[in-house]
């Protein structure tokens, strides 16, 4: 049926830089989670086996730190891009296209919760829905605290010179709990909301191709679509 339909009109949604950075995050996040949890569950035989496949605890630890640095470089590139976007390209970081959280997001959340219980229409999202914004900020801010606690565990000699010794222990627990949070959030919530939604299943490709189909655009980002029709950029 679908083969007879003309290829749908598509619109550019994601810049090439963001698509690359997203792949950088996928790659490093996965390896970080795997190596980190292998250390935590090293009491089990399967974890020991997988670590030995990686070349032992030393190699797995090196890989974990390598991926951490690689991932953080991605975040730095993104932050540099934000400055470039604002000061060189003279674009606005706020406004309806922004990823910054606003009052509309709280209204949208409330309206969406009502909609989930069949008490009204779904909210009309702009360029980024509140869930997409949450995904973004969870990653951007979460990686800061994972980075800080990770550095504390990596260089305890340095940080014990600044903070009381037990801060290193706290960093250890926070690093682990936040890893659990991140993996369960990305693995369940982000995966379901983007890929498992019946209309989109099996896969949302726009973050990889950069393009969004007209129908999806109109349905998922109606406010942005409306603005685009009035004032095409």
């Amino acid at each position, binding site marked *: 049926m679908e083969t007879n339909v003309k290829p749908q009109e598509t619109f550019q949604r994601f810049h090439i830089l963001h698509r690359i950075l997203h792949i950088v995050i996928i790659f490093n996040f996965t390896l970080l989670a795997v190596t980190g949890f292998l*250390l*935590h569950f*090293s*009491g089990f035989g399967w*974890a*020991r086996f997988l*670590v030995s496949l990686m070349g*032992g*605890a*030393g190699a*797995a*630890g090196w890989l974990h730190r390598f991926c951490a640095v690689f991932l953080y470089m991605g975040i730095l590139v993104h932050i540099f891009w934000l400055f470039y976007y604002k000061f060189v390209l003279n674009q606005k970081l706020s406004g309806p296209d922004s990823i910054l959280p606003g009052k509309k997001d709280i209204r949208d959340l409330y309206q*969406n*919760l009502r*909609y*989930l*219980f*069949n008490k009204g229409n779904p909210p009309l999202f702009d360029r980024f829905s509140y869930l997409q914004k949450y995904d973004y900020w969870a990653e951007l801010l979460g990686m800061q605290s994972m980075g800080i606690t990770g550095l504390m*565990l990596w260089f*305890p*000699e*340095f940080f*014990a*010179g600044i*903070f*009381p*010794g*037990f801060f*290193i*222990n*706290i960093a*250890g*627990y*926070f690093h682990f*709990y*936040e890893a*659990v*949070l991140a993996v*369960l*959030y990305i693995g*369940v*919530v982000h995966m*379901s*909301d983007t890929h*498992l*939604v*019946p*209309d989109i299943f099996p896969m949302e490709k726009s973050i990889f191709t950069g393009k969004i189909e007209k129908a999806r655009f109109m349905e998922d980002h109606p406010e942005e679509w409306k603005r685009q029709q009035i004032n095409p950029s």
Partner: protein
Amino acid sequence: MQSGTIKIKTKLKTRWMVPLLMAGCVLLGLLWFSYARAGNDTASLSTWFVDMNQYAASAHGSLKCEECHGLMVGNGLGKGLDRGKSHPDPDAANFLKTQTRRNFDYQSCRKCHKTAYSRFLKGEHSTAAAKEKTTGNPSKTGYAPACGDCHSAHYSKSHLSRAQTGKIMTETCGTCHQEQKESFLANYHGKAAVNLGYEKAAFCTDCHGAHTMLSLKDKEAALNACLRCHSEAPPEFANIIIHDSTKNLDLKSDAKKSGIKWVHALRVLALILVVAVLAFFFMHTGLFMLRKLHEKLRRHK
């Protein structure tokens, strides 16, 4: 017809269930019996009778018995006990009943292991032994160990790797210091060292000293232990908690006690936060999926 066959099947099942269960019980009993026996066998390591095959393969395998035990036969050449009568004396009331490990005179170890022995004499295990003698009671942890309680003179092998020795050591120390073993294995050091066999990580004696067995409650001693690997450790480094356990807090230094309290309070807080965030988003996603599915199915109709 059909219901009849089903009935027969269920009958068959119940008929076989009882003997199967009984066989299972017998098997479990046998397993327990052999396990208990095996336990007895390992407990009898280094008591009155020595497995000479294992002994020959051990680190001491080239030594003759009398080099450590003196002459056992009453040929008049031996000294002390050995003179005149055989040792052990079959006529003695406690023949083969005394605990060999607690009664052996470990002075003979000193002949070859001088450094280890002098360190042991300075260490906390011999302090505990001295205390035991004056009070007559063992400490909370148990009887103070002498050489043979940790080392098997007859069966211990030489030329083991650091990781092999470390694994055995963690079990050996853990027989009396169970909590310390558990908290060590929950710590990064123990996970890397024991679980993953990482030879650069610290095992028990790397911090506590091989024969001195310092408790490291003294901050300076603890810092010295850290400095062996973490050459740039500042003084506060010694307050990082390695044995993170809320049991037996009174044994720890004051800095560690307050540290552990903070760590556990914040740990609980972090756990609550994680559970709350995940609970909200899991419910949100679950409802969202149901709603979208519902809409899609309605459109198809």
